[in-house]
């Protein structure tokens, strides 16, 4: 996306991004996201560095900020939109679950292993949870989720089958 770095967003780029994000955003939202991307990308490098993300105060006080920011290494605009896509009101439940799974699967091997869960719990529950308690919790979760040593996507999905993910919506501010 050469144009993104130099400042303009062409219609071709917009179409490409809409396609990449499975059409959950309309034109106005893409343009708005682009403005936001440009505002965050201080040096106009074409991607957003972790420091630039963490300079957002509301994000920096989020317990899983580090994981979120590492999850999408230095996103360019398309990747940025793909990351926000599951939070569109038009995204499917499946998309939201896939995103949550990707974040939880720290080593990215397609399974949530004990190590993955341990790392995530450290970020979610902090150091006041002792190692012993953490392992205990992980064992119980694995047990309740089907008994395997690690969770694949199907197990994750069925574990969350009763969860209402209606809260997982972010509205993209659009100038009217």
């Amino acid at each position, binding site marked *: 996306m050469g144009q993104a770095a130099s400042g303009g967003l062409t219609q071709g780029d917009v179409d490409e991004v809409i396609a990449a994000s499975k059409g959950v955003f309309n034109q106005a939202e893409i343009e708005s*996201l682009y403005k*936001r991307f440009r*505002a*965050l990308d*201080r040096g106009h490098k074409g991607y957003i560095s972790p420091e630039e993300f*963490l*300079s*957002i*105060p*509301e*994000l*920096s*006080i*989020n*317990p*899983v*900020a580090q994981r*979120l920011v590492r999850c999408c290494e230095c996103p360019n605009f398309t990747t*940025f939109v793909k*990351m*926000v896509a599951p*939070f569109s*009101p038009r995204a499917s439940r499946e998309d*939201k679950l896939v*995103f*949550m799974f990707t*974040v*939880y699967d720290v080593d990215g091997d397609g399974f949530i292993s004990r190590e993955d*869960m341990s790392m*995530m*719990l450290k*970020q*979610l*529950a*902090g*150091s*006041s*949870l002792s190692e012993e*308690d953490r392992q*205990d*919790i992980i064992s*119980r*979760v694995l047990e*309740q*989720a089907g008994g395997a040593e690690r969770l694949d996507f199907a197990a*994750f999905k069925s*574990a*969350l089958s*009763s*969860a*209402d*993910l*209606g*809260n*997982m*919506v*972010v*509205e*993209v*501010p659009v100038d009217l």
Partner: protein
Amino acid sequence: MGELVKGRLESSLPGLRGIVADDKDQEHALVTREGPTKGDAEIDQLYAEAEDKRLLKTSLLLDVLNISNVLTDGVSAMVDDSFNKCFTSTRPEPWNWNIYLFPIWVVGVVIRYLVLFPIRVTLLFIGFNALIVVFLLVDLTLMPSKRKMAMQRKLVQWMCSAWVAAWHGVIRYHGPKPTPGKNRIWVSNHTSMIDYVVLCSYSPFAVIMQLHYGWIAFLQKRILSSLGCLWFNRTEVNDRAVVAARMKDHVNKEDAIPLLIFPEGTCVNNEYTVMFKRGAFDIGATVCPVAIKYNKIFVDAFWNSRREAFGKHLFRLMTSWALVCDVYFLEPQSIQPEESPQEFAGRVQAMIAKYANLRIVPWDGYLKYYNLGEKNPGLIEKRRRVLADVLRAYLGKTSAAPSAMALAKEGKAAVELQSDGKGQKGTSSVASAADKKDR
């Protein structure tokens, strides 16, 4: 749960969505238009309570695996956040898009850049330099005396008027003209360095400024110093104590020239106002608020120092038709007996925000320069501890350590015990730096 909320999901707790903090009475709102801002420990407790409310606590499996809330907080902040909103300049709608308006616009551009701008620059150059020369003469030849000071002030006032004329400033001043008085300090909202020029062309002020570089530094040191302006470096932690002492010194002088402070500490885009730092409210002086509102009709006076050099900012001002502005001098306020300096600052901020039509945002302006989470890990730890307690409960253990909620309450009580205003640590951000009972 389960219904999508229409419109923007507003939360009174930045970075934590879906729950509106419990405000049993006005006092508990994080920031209200008319009321005070919260202390740090209380904010931590609000977050802890909101986290606690948000957790479903139905099953261990869900509470561990369902990270949708915290992910939504994060991505929501990535898409839009209330802090960066304060520093964006809104682009006006282009109006020159049709065949009749476009030529008119072109003519306008030509006049502004090729006629107005050169005239203004020339007049400014001549006038300003003449005044500088006179100023330096006065400075060097006369002995320090009341008359000399009066002359210097008049000269600075004229210099500022020359600049205002160069921008074709149309400025309306409302309210009584500031008079120097003992133990008085003036505070104003901050949009650009030109705020000072706009005010000074009407009535001279001394100011505490960030020392800049280049030719501005020359102006600052040579000329403004004679007015009693104080310099500081906002990243120097020690400077704060020094500056506070000098502020007190200045306002205690008999014929002190009015001292102007910008408690926001940074330029904001004139639509919002960020947290007022309590320095100016802590020295026991009467505070005279000043509200400045720029009309964006011809030009946006916000100086976005991250995006624009000051020179470019000035160029933009001098190539527009006019700079329209309203300045309100408001009723002097004193600190009330039960008020802490931070609450006093919040009250004055609410006054200024009302006149200048600004939305109050509870962030510290200095967050432009540092990472909040890094500097104040206390708040994140408190939020994490809430989940940790819930998870431990599933294991059948009551917490060995005091729970997050209890700790937050204790912290609040400890602060209240010492609360003569001085009990709060000198943190200048929303989140508390350290809870005393923290590990």
